[in-house]
């Protein structure tokens, strides 16, 4: 039975660390980085890459479209 594996790529410079992508991630993949970007924001990153399903929930709620989403099928 085929399972999907996802991944997100965050544009650390356009991310404003607003965190609205966190609650919509059902797998709690996303957290905010300790250090800041040039604008002084703690940007988002994949804290739990393995859990990402590539559902795009985070990306479509991101006001700044800082997230790109990737997905592949992997056989269990």
């Amino acid at each position, binding site marked *: 039975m085929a399972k999907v594996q996802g991944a997100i790529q965050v544009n650390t410079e356009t991310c*404003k660390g607003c965190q609205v992508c966190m609650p919509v991630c059902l797998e709690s993949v996303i957290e905010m980085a300790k250090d800041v970007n040039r*604008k*002084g*924001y703690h940007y988002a990153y994949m804290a739990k890459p393995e859990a990402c399903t590539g559902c795009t929930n985070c990306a479509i709620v991101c006001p700044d479209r800082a997230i790109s989403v990737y997905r592949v099928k992997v056989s269990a």
Partner: protein
Amino acid sequence: MTEEIIIAGFGGQGVLSMGKILAYSGMMQDEEVSWMPSYGPEMRGGTANVMVILSDERISSPYLKVFDTAIILNQQSMDKFQDSVKPGGVLLYDPNGITIHPTRTDIEIFQIEGKKLAVELGNAKISNMIILGAFLKVKPIVKLDNVIAGIKKSLPERYHHLIPLNKEAITKGMDNLKPYSAKELSLK
């Protein structure tokens, strides 16, 4: 005595309030003061600056091109205002986040690790008071108790419990002022 100061940094760094406290402090010792902010749609993270003048004479222009002292809290401001310091004047800055350091050799330059020390004090928001302290070390133009009185005036009642912390921050700033010489850099 007339002291013409510019304070510049990010919106969130307490630039305007630092200037406000300076102005209030001057007022506490019966000086003429003016406080001229940059203003506009202050989106978070935007830059802000304020021109503060303390003087024992009537102040003419609140808006100036050159200053006795520039207090700089981020790179944009460094780029914009380094040259606005009068020859022989003072440039005080927080090195945190500064990649291109000042290069002028005809002025006095000082560093103060505002942000870092604030974290040590356990309140990032207090860094502007640390920097204020550092400035007063360089130019003791207002007495400390007048500064405290100024803070009282400018803070709403409900924040007055923070005054001791502010005092602590100011002294910390005074103790941690570091002179900086552009020469070193230019030597390398």
